[in-house]
Structure formats: C-alpha cells, structure tokens
C-alpha cells in the first residue's frame, strides 16, 4: 500500500521577533510543504528578510516555534541553502575559487569538490567564465554563482532573499530559469521578494505586511479573492497629488497606485472609464501617454489589501 505522507519542509507557529521595542514579526504562522515553491512578498520593513533569516538559522525568534522537517533550524543546516540579499561572493576570487571555498567548508575532498563545482558551474552556465574574477562578472552572473553555493548535494530547501533586485530583464530571466530548474528537482523554494512578477512564478504566495502574513494562497486565487477585475495602467506626463485625485474619482474605493511612470487604477467598467479619464487628465493639463487595460498583478492585490505599495516608486 502506498503511503501518502506530505511532510512540512518548513513550519512556523506564532513566530515573533523583537529588536528592542520594535516588533518586526508579530505572530507568523507558515507551513511550506516539501517540494513547494513559496514566494513571500511584501514591502521593505515588512519582516520578510527577518523571517527568512530565522528559517535559515541566522537569527533566533523572540518567541514561537520554527521547524525544518520537524527539527530546529540549527539542527537542519545541512538541508538549507540560504542566499542572503547582499552579494556575499568574494569579488577578488574567481567564480570557481568561490565555489571551491564553499565546497571546502562543506567538507568535500579536493577531487570531489572539483567534480561537484564543475557540475555546478555547468548548471549555472558559468563554465566558460569560471576562472574570471567575480569583480568582472555582471550582476546576474554573480547572483547565479551565489545560488550555486546553495545547490551542493543534500540541499532540500532553497531560501532566496530578494535575488532579482538590481538585475536587468535578461539576467532576471536567466536567473529565474535556474530557480525553475531547482523546482523541477523537487527542491523546496522560499523566495523573498517585493516584485509581483517574480512571486507569480511560485505555486503559493504569502503577502506579508507589518510583521504579519495577511494573505496566503495560489497567485491566481489571491487575485480572484481580492475582487479586482481590471486595472487601468496609465502613463502620464505629470505625476502629482492633483493627478492622483482626478484618477481616484474613477477608481473603486478611490484607490490609485502610483508607479514609476504613472498610475494604476481599479475600475469595473473600463470601456466607459478610459475615454473619460483621458479627457479629465487633459482638463488639468496632464497628458496620458499610454493607457492600457491589464489583469491585476500581485502588487495590485497587495495594494488593495493594505493601501500600501510593495515597492517604492522612483
């Protein structure tokens, strides 16, 4: 008889973390199953990095329970591959030297380390650049190299903290391809991000705000349950409070999300609203350079739930 046991790779119950009087995590409950790709999305300061570092055994919780395959995190370090937000590889060593250093730390013999490192370099597409110094790598190459430090045999959980921040679109695509490969190999993945498009790749997304997970579901389900139907994405020549107020009149609940180049508004009847929006903007001397109707993103869902943006606009 086949036994169907789904074990929790990561389990957190009522987890809190305080720094002095500042409570960064306020009772987080989280369960991530083995092989699951879970994205934790939230703005800066929401507690997502703190949560990741507690799971990775870099920080201790103030209270609550955290288990990795039923063990305390410090007893399960060999199962975890943690990639912190910063670029931790040594820029004055070559890519291969960096990986050999980590192989050495993990106790591999020289020959075995050499073999595994060559395999890893091949896997991350850096074989040709293995002997270049990391200072000569692009941001994307460096991030892939750093992910490779977490892909040594035995890693069952990959924790990635904001891995695509600062990467150009091509490097980001390549990097996410690497994560998809890890997913196909049944590695449990916890992706910490503030980028909705990255979180969409996950099988489940948790939205975290002010130290609490406020929603947790499949990406599509999160969008459905948010009640958002359509989003009008408007690029404008001017961004000001006045423009936002005008647009607010067309948005459900007056909610307007500011973007790098304009605004996003949430509207049920987009066909009627669109020409009126353009006219209203014209009337206050603001040109709409682009108006598009889009499906809501996870960033829209977060905004709908919290009235706060996941990321700062430039």
């Amino acid at each position, binding site marked *: 008889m086949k036994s169907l046991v789904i074990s929790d790779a990561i389990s957190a119950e009522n987890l809190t973390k305080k720094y002095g009087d500042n409570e960064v995590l306020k009772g987080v409950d989280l369960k991530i199953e083995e092989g699951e790709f879970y994205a934790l999305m939230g703005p800066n300061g929401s507690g997502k990095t703190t949560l990741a570092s507690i799971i990775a055994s*870099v920080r201790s919780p103030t209270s609550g329970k955290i288990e990795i395959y039923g063990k305390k995190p410090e007893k399960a370090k060999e199962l975890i591959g943690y990639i*912190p937000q910063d670029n*931790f590889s040594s820029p004055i060593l070559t890519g291969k030297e960096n990986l050999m250093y980590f192989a050495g730390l993990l106790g591999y013999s020289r020959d075995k380390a050499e073999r595994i490192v060559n395999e890893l370099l091949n896997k991350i597409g850096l074989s040709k650049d293995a002997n270049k110094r990391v200072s000569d790598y692009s941001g994307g190459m460096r991030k892939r190299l750093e992910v490779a430090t977490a892909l040594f045999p035995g890693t069952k959980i990959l924790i990635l903290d904001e891995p695509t921040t600062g990467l150009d679109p091509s490097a980001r695509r390549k990097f996410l391809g690497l994560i998809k490969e890890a997913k196909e190999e049944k590695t449990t993945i916890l992706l910490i991000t503030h980028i909705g498009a990255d979180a969409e790749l996950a099988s489940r997304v948790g939205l975290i705000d002010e130290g609490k997970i406020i929603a947790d579901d499949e990406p599509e389900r999160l969008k459905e349950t948010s009640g958002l139907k359509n989003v009008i994405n408007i690029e404008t020549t001017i961004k000001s409070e006045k423009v936002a107020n005008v647009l607010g009149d067309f948005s459900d609940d007056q909610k307007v999300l500011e973007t790098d180049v304009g605004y996003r508004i949430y509207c049920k009847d987009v066909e009627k609203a669109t020409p009126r929006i353009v006219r209203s903007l014209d009337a206050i001397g603001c040109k709409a350079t682009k108006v598009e109707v889009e499906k809501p993103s996870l960033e829209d869902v977060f905004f709908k739930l919290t009235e706060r943006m996941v990321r700062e606009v430039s």
Partner: protein
Amino acid sequence: MTATLGKTIKEFLRQKTILFWTIAWPILWVLIGSFSFTGSVPEEVAAYVKGSITISMSVFALMTAGIANLPGNIAQDRERGLLSKLMSMPINPWRDFAGRILALLAFSSLAAILVALVGYICGARFSYTLAGLWQSIGFLLLISFASAGIGMLIGTFIKHVHGAIMSGVGIAVVTAAISGVMAPYSSLPSLLQQFATVYPISSGNSSITYLLVGKDYAGYDPLSTSQTTLTIIASLLFFVAGLLAYSRFCWRKD
C-alpha cells in the same frame, strides 16, 4: 579550516592596499632607515643598526597584518553578508576562526621574511645563537597573536570595512611610533618607555632585538623573567579577548 585559510590568503595577496601596508611600506622604511640614518655610524655598528631597523620593520609587518588586514577581512565578510551565509551553513565557527588565524600567520611570515631579506641585502647583520633564534621565533608568534587579538577586537566592533582598515592602520602606526617599534626605546619619554614594556608588540620587538642584535640595541632588558612573563601574558590576553569578541559577537544570532 583549509578552505578559509586558502580563501583568506588569496584575498590578502590580491589586494594592493594590503600588499602596500604590510610588505611595501615596511620595506620602504628599511630602505630609508638603512641609507639615511646610518651615514655617520661606523660600518660595523651600522650593520647592527640596520639589523635593528629590519627587525622593527618585520614586526611592523606582523602588526599591520594582524591589526589592519585581519579586521578589514572580517568587516568585509560581514558587510557583504558572508558571515550570515556562513551562519546558515553546517560549519563550526572555530574552524573559520582557525583558518583566518593560520592565513594571517602564513601571510605575516611571508611579509616578515621579505622585509628581513631586503634588510639583509641592504647590509643588516645579526649576532645570535641557535637558542636565541628559536626564542625570537617564539616572540614573533606572540607578536602575531597579540596583533591578531587587537585585529579581531577592531573587526568585531567596527562594522564598516574602511573604518576597520583605517582604524587598524592608525592603531598600528601610532602604537608602533609611541612604543619604540619605529623609534629607539632610549629616545622615548619615560611614560612611553613604561608603555613600551607593557605593550606586548613593543616588548616582543625589544626581546627579538636583544636576542638577534644585542642588548645595547634593545635599550633595556626585555628578557628578565618578570618582563618576559608580562609579554607572554599580555599577548595572550589580547588574543583571547579578540577571540572571545569575534566568536561571541560576529557569529552571534541577534
């Protein structure tokens, strides 16, 4: 441990500022000292004065390696998130520590040997017994341990790389200048002479000078039982304090 040793050595050898302060700077002073300060001195004496300068600059190389390079390396690893990464891995902090210290000793030895070689080429001569040579190696080790201890304290408490390096260089240069490493012990005011006997790097330097060049060049008897005991205890105290600070605060979960 060998992984950290290999990484740290490579990082030391590939950074120009480290090579400058630890190797080029002391060599420069050996050259300046050998040709500028010994012109009016009889040739026989000059060879030993050059020997004394060479020892001081070799000690200065050890000081810089421990007091400036080591904290720079620790601060760099912390600043770029490597220490967080290491804390998440199944590795023993003591092995990381041992790897760093061994790398420091290897790099310091290389620097000291190069400085001594340049001094010898410039005419430095020594007068020693085999036992004195072994004792000198012991004092060199004590100087390295004391420097590493001070370096670990700086690296633990000064978070930023440049701050850690500049503090280290500053402390190394100033303490070398006021404790008789860079100037003859006899030329120091009495307060600084007292400091020179308590500061283990300076008393270690005087001990080596006494053993390899002669007591006239040391300025006092650094090999008396009480002074040697003080040098050993002070060196080990710095080392243990640095070690405790590093293991407690750099690898601590907050």
